């Protein structure tokens, strides 16, 4: 992947809304065929960055190029290169599923002859063949999301941009969607994804940028981030809300790192089970305990001192 052509490159990118700085001088590169993610909590500046790339928002300063073009000079051309799935669906409620796909292709100037077979392929891909004549209003959230993705693919874009693709969907709908996105990834489509779900970032992204308050905190593959910013395992213990703070200093001595959350304590160690055993030997018996592998949530906690979803 590293020797692939660079499709998107941002340098010292800044966006201010009035006095408020939403994106604070970020740099990144996205290469052809990779699946690149922005992981960060609400308000991190993910959507703002996506909209600047998609040429629907102007930057305050810095440079950005998409396939070598500046979005402020070549807006329509860049939009023709991209497939956009915005955070909030903006399907055409007055039209049916099929009509939505058709007219979106027409917006790009594509011919009916080109779009018609494309519609069949995309309805199949989005598992919406039976819903083709249904008005969009009548679709479930997951179906709408799949249709929005299918719609973004009508113009055969080089890069597919997905802003929080599964936010607000139930677990089953999320899994169907992930499966669809995985297929696209296998076909070599370059994906640009934002999310505040660490499982989504782990599942879909080859490379991640952890964002918080408009800045980049770290950048690497999911496994690489965990390796650099966390231990192999985590022991989660609960001593009851009033006791947690009391035992914390003692626990701190026994492991690499500790995070005291309102309801539980996270102990970072290479071997969680043996740490738990050690706790028992010192007479510390938590009410509940759980050993798990480190996740991106831990990385985020380490980098920002906060959890991803508040």
């Amino acid at each position, binding site marked *: 992947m590293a020797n692939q052509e660079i499709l998107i490159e941002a340098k010292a990118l800044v966006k201010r809304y009035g006095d408020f700085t939403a994106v604070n001088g970020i740099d990144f590169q996205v290469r052809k065929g990779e699946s690149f993610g922005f992981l960060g909590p609400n308000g991190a500046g993910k959507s703002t960055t996506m909209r600047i790339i998609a040429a629907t928002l*102007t930057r305050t300063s810095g440079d950005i190029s998409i396939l070598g073009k500046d979005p402020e000079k070549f807006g*329509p051309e860049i939009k023709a290169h991209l497939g956009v799935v915005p955070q909030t669906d*903006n399907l055409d409620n007055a039209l*049916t599923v099929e*009509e939505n796909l058709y007219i979106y292709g027409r*917006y790009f*100037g594509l011919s009916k002859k080109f779009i018609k077979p494309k519609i069949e392929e995309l309805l199949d891909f989005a598992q919406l063949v039976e819903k083709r004549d249904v008005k969009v209003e009548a679709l479930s959230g997951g179906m709408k999301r799949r249709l929005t993705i299918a719609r973004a693919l009508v113009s055969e874009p080089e890069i597919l941009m997905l802003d929080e693709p599964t936010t607000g969907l139930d677990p089953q709908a999320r899994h169907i969607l992930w499966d669809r996105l995985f297929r696209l990834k296998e076909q070599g489509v370059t994906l640009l994804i934002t999310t505040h779900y660490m499982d989504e970032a782990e599942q879909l992204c080859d490379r991640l940028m952890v964002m918080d308050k408009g800045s980049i905190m770290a950048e690497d593959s999911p496994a690489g981030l965990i390796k650099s910013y966390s231990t192999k395992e985590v022991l989660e213990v609960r001593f009851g809300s009033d006791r947690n703070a009391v035992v914390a200093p003692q626990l701190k001595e026994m492991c690499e790192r500790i995070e005291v959350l309102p309801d539980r304590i996270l102990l970072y160690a290479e071997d969680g089970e043996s740490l738990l055993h050690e706790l028992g030997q010192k007479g510390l018996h938590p009410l509940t305990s759980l050993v798990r592998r480190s996740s991106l949530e831990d990385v985020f906690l380490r980098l920002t001192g906060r959890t991803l979803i508040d």
Partner: protein
Amino acid sequence: MIVDNAVAIAQSRRGHFAEGSYSGRAHVLLERSLMAFRNSAWLAVLSGFFEPVLYLFSFGYGLGHLIGKIPLQNGHIVSYAAYIAPGLLATSAMNGAIYDSTWNVFWKIKFDRIYQSMLQTSLGSVDVALGEISWALLRGFAYAVGFMCVVVPAGLITNWWAVMAIPSAVLIAFGFASVGMAITSCFSTFQQMDLINIAMLPMFLFSGSFYPLTVYPGYLQGFLKALPLWQAISLVRDFTLGMVSWGILWHVLYFVVMISIGVTFTAKRLTKLFLR
């Protein structure tokens, strides 16, 4: 030759007029409106046809019975129904255009996010403005033709110039739709939208649909003549009653200016709203 590649299509616009905001595809917006219309909106459109017809029968024949004949400036004498028919035609062109370009557009901006989805493709804000306004214009055309189908058999039209009332209605609809969409693109609340309704009714009642402006004092006449509905009614009336002179061109010019300002301003607003 048809090139079916979104990027090649967008690239072919390099160096063309307003390349960043106009892709030369306003007609695809009409295609969309037609599909949406087939799906549901036809009932509302149909009601806009009946409105002026109902006015014509109740006022034209009911009230007309008491009023009798109306003498024109050119010496001709016409029935009251024939006198108000052009006013009603102009008004229905206006109403159709205003409905499409205000409430419909407001809904699309605020809730449906349709323009947002269009502007994330290689369409530009000028395409969107022109395309939406053109739909309103088509509606004005349909009303004019429909109304003619009633007034001609009713014997209210007696000269060939009246054919020109149809392109006039299109021009009128175009003008009102451009300005209507421009104003709507600046509004963000329902209260503001109600202002449009509040402005429309008095304009309809006092712009000379039902009687000549000469009943008013001079300064008020001047004010009313500056309003677009009076311009519209005069334009149509001059044609349907055969009072044709070069002076008609002033009314045409009025609408050309209205259209230019409306379209330019609407495209600017759409850019500001969705492509900051």
